[in-house]
Structure formats: structure tokens, C-alpha cells
């Protein structure tokens, strides 16, 4: 059923901290690693060791330079993956019902055995979250590691998406953004988290936390007090004498 549910019981999603992300691409690698053996067909590569390598990834890390009105430019690393939108345009365009949004937790998934690989959902997504796998001919996208988060065969600390689990700087957070008291919701409120391309009215669940304001550099040198020396004793006499001779 590719009509969107009127509501979902929970709104599971990611909160990505652009302040702490160092752009190491560990989330990209962990995602690729887990999804090579988890839900659905593996993420294939083409010409992996050749001159023109290409492959399917569910998460990509961009780097941007932002020039504020005043002060130095900032480099911001920007992980980009599925935002599990509430009004997901990728779901409604699907002709086969392969794309759907789950009522129980709001995760947007692809039923790969029903996907015809027409690519229309990827066209409908503003965020580039979907990539058609060149080997399998079906659409791949972030599953929010649906095969990890409910997996009772895993230790409890591993029951979160692979990208979140692996992030060495703790820049990625996972939780229920529909619950205002959840850790992620409180984080979003405290740090003024925002949604991407709100003008397209897709109502993403995922939120991004803006980089914190950087300290302004002080114009007065830290060494200034040390430079303002008063000569004493013999040096003071010499200083006076030489000054008079001037």
C-alpha cells in the first residue's frame, strides 16, 4: 500500500550533530558493511577495483564550507541519508506498493521482492536518499537498520542503527522523535535542530543540529600583559639616562 498512513505510533529517526561530525565516513562504511549482510539484497559495487569504481550506498558524507557574515569560514561535514519523511513523496509515487511507511514506527522501507526498479521513488526524493542497485535492479535505501534495532539476538547496546553505533564522535543519535520526552527530542529542542528543505513539505523525521557558535577571536593578544614591562633598579636608571641622551 503506497498511500501514507494518517499517523504512525512512533517516529523513529536520526539526529545528526553537525557540530561534532568530523567527516570520517565511518558511518558510511558501517552502513555499507551491515547492509551487505542484513535486510534485502547486498549493496553491490561495480568496477570496485578498476578505473571507474561505483557502488550503492545508503549514506553519504558531504563537506561544505560556510562563510558567515563576519569571521572565518567554517567547514561542516554533512552526512546525508533517508530522513523517513512523514509525507514521504517516494512512497506515494510507487506503482507497485513496494515502497511503504510503517505504521508502528514510521520507518520508510522497500519491499524488494515487489520493486520493479522503475526509479520513480528516487526521482521523487529531494534528498537523494534512494539508490537503484545496479546489480539487483531494485531500489535500496536506509532501513534505519530495522534488522538491528528490534534484534534480540544482539546485545542491547547494539540495537541501534550501524551508523549510530559506530560513530566515534557521538555525532549521530537514534530515537523516537514523536515522543517529546525522548532523549533525541530533548536534544533537538535544546540545540534548535532543523529539518532539510522544509519548503518541499516532505516533513522529515530526522533532524540536524547546527554547529555551535564559535568563540570570537580576541583582538588583544594574550601576551599583552607580559609586554607591558616596567624597568626597575639599574635598568630603570639606564633607561632614564639613555632617554635623556636621545
Amino acid at each position, binding site marked *: *500500500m*503506497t*498511500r501514507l498512513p494518517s499517523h504512525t505510533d512512533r517516529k523513529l529517526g536520526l539526529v545528526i550533530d*553537525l557540530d561534532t561530525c568530523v567527516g570520517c565516513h565511518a558511518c*558510511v562504511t558501517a552502513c555499507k558493511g551491515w547492509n551487505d549482510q542484513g535486510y534485502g539484497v547486498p549493496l553491490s559495487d561495480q568496477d570496485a577495483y578498476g578505473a*571507474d*569504481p*561505483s*557502488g550503492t*550506498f545508503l549514506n*553519504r*558524507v*558531504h*563537506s*561544505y*564550507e*560556510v*562563510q*558567515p*557574515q563576519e569571521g572565518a569560514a*567554517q*567547514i561542516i561535514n554533512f552526512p*546525508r541519508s533517508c530522513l523517513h519523511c512523514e509525507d514521504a*513523496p517516494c*512512497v*506515494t*509515487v*510507487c*506503482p507497485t*506498493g*513496494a515502497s511503504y511507511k510503517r505504521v508502528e514506527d514510521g520507518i520508510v522501507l522497500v519491499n524488494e521482492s*515487489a*520493486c*520493479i*526498479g*522503475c*526509479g*520513480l521513488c*528516487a*526521482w*521523487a*526524493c*529531494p*534528498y*537523494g536518499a534512494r*539508490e537503484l542497485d*545496479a546489480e*539487483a*535492479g531494485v*531500489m535500496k535505501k536506509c532501513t534505519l537498520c530495522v534488522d538491528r534495532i528490534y534484534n534480540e539476538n544482539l546485545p542491547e547496546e547494539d540495537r541501534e542503527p550501524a551508523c549510530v553505533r559506530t560513530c566515534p564522535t557521538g555525532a549521530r543519535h537514534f530515537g523516537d522523535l514523536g515522543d517529546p520526552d525522548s532523549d533525541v527530542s530533548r536534544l533537538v529542542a535544546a540545540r534548535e535542530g*532543523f*529539518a*532539510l*528543505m*522544509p*519548503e*518541499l513539505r516532505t516533513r522529515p523525521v530526522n533532524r*540536524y543540529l*547546527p*554547529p555551535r557558535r564559535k568563540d570570537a577571536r580576541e583582538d588583544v593578544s594574550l601576551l599583552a600583559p607580559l609586554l607591558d614591562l616596567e624597568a626597575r633598579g639599574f635598568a630603570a636608571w639606564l633607561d632614564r639616562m639613555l632617554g635623556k641622551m636621545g
Partner: protein
Amino acid sequence: MNPAPSVIIFTVLSGLGFGYLAWLCAGLATPAGIGAFLAFGAGYALAAGGLLASTFHLGQPKRAWRAFTQWRSSWLSREAWVSVAALLAVAPVALGALAGKEPGLWGLVAAALCLGTVLCTSMIYAQLATVPRWNHPLVPVTFQLFALAGGAILLPLPLVAAVLGVVLAGVLAIGFRIGDARFAGAGSTLATATGLGRIGAPRVFEQPHTGGNYLTREMIHVVGRRHAARLRRIAVAGVVLPALILPLLPSVAGVALALCAHLVGAFAARWLFFAEAEHVVGLYYGRR
């Protein structure tokens, strides 16, 4: 967007075929006997052949039947239904014409379904807010005009084809002008795409991957725009030329020549329709 040959061929040929079948079923100039056999045969070949070509760009063509299930939300699914309904509805009209019967009221139903198929095809593109150039009412209007003008040339209805050709040329020219302003008008920028506009002016510092991927090949296809200005002139000239050819050469050769001009225009316009369309995901890569 990637101007995939299969999709360009499909939309042009099936549009022409359904436009032709619509005119045949409307009963303005329905041929009889062997003429009807050839006419409806050609219409079916174009329409169904185009639909078949469209399955070539699927990753899993053998599951194409599943596309009939989601007609409540998906224009692609509606296209599947309406196209099959149109091809079935035309059959009794075609059989009647073989026996020398007029299409009648049922013919109008069949004609409406034929044009409805073209509408569904165009809405697949026009519904996408992610491609602002497509997301405009002129897109379905242009698709309808291509179908009707091409069909009128084939019938032939020289006067109707001439008028439609001129109108289509005008709509194409206006469409190019409006389309050029659509992306900026939609308001999505790298600042809104990343949300970093709240800090300052963002620009791409480093790409997430050094090679290409599905997104860059499919949606950030900039190579096809190289000859855009020239192709626009070819498109407009191609669709307007039948208006000169048909009155001057009232013969089979004239119709063939007019059809060739129309198809050159149609293929140029459809190439540009894809090649010039910019997807907002290109913002993340700093290219559209």
C-alpha cells in the same frame, strides 16, 4: 535528469500512437476496410510498442504487472490501468471500422481513454516537486498537444494539424521560457538543502565520493544540455513545419514529410525535457 533513450522513445511514440487512436476513435475521418486495418494497426503498434519500450528501463521488467496495484496514489500505476483500458476500448471501434461502421459514442469513450493515458504519462513528471521545471501545468498541456498534433498529421487532418502545430510551437517556446525560471522560483538552494543558510553562505568543499553514483548518473546529468539552444530551435521548427508542409503538399508524401518534421521536433523537445530538467538533489553536489 538522464535523457534515457528508452523513456524518450516510449513517451514520443506512445504519445503519437494514442493521439492517432484518439482521432481515429473520435470519428472525424474514420477509414474503412483495409484502410482501417492499416490505420488502427499503426496506432496500436505505436502505442503498444511505446509501452513495451518503457519496460526496458525497469530494473525488474518481469514484475511489471505489479504496477497495476497502486492506482490510488501513483500516476505510474494509473498510467498502466488507463493505457490497457484504452487499448481494449479501441478494439471494438477498430473492428467496427473494418466492417465500415462509424465509431459512435463508444468511440468518444475510447478517445478519452487514449488521451487519458497521455495525461497519466505527463503527470508522472508534472507531479514531481523535486524537478521544478516539470512541476508545472504546461507539462501535461504540452504532452496532450504533441499527441493531438502528431495524430492529426497521421490521420490526416491537415487544417487541424496545422493549427495544433502552431499552437504547440508557441506552447513549447513559452514552456522553455517558464521552465528556465522554475528552479530559482521553487526556492530550494544549498542553504535550504543543508539548513546551513542560518550560518552563512554554503558552498561545496569536498564531494562525498570521487566517482559517480546512481544519483549523479540519473539526476545530475548535465552533459545533455550542451546543445540546448540549438535543440530548442529544432524542436520549435520541427513542430511548426507541418503547418507549412501539409497545405503545400496535399499528398501521402506531404504527410510523410510533415510526420518526419513533427517527430524530429518531438524527439528534440523530449530530449530537452529530460536533459534540461534539474533535480534538487544536485544542490548537495553543487551541480544541477
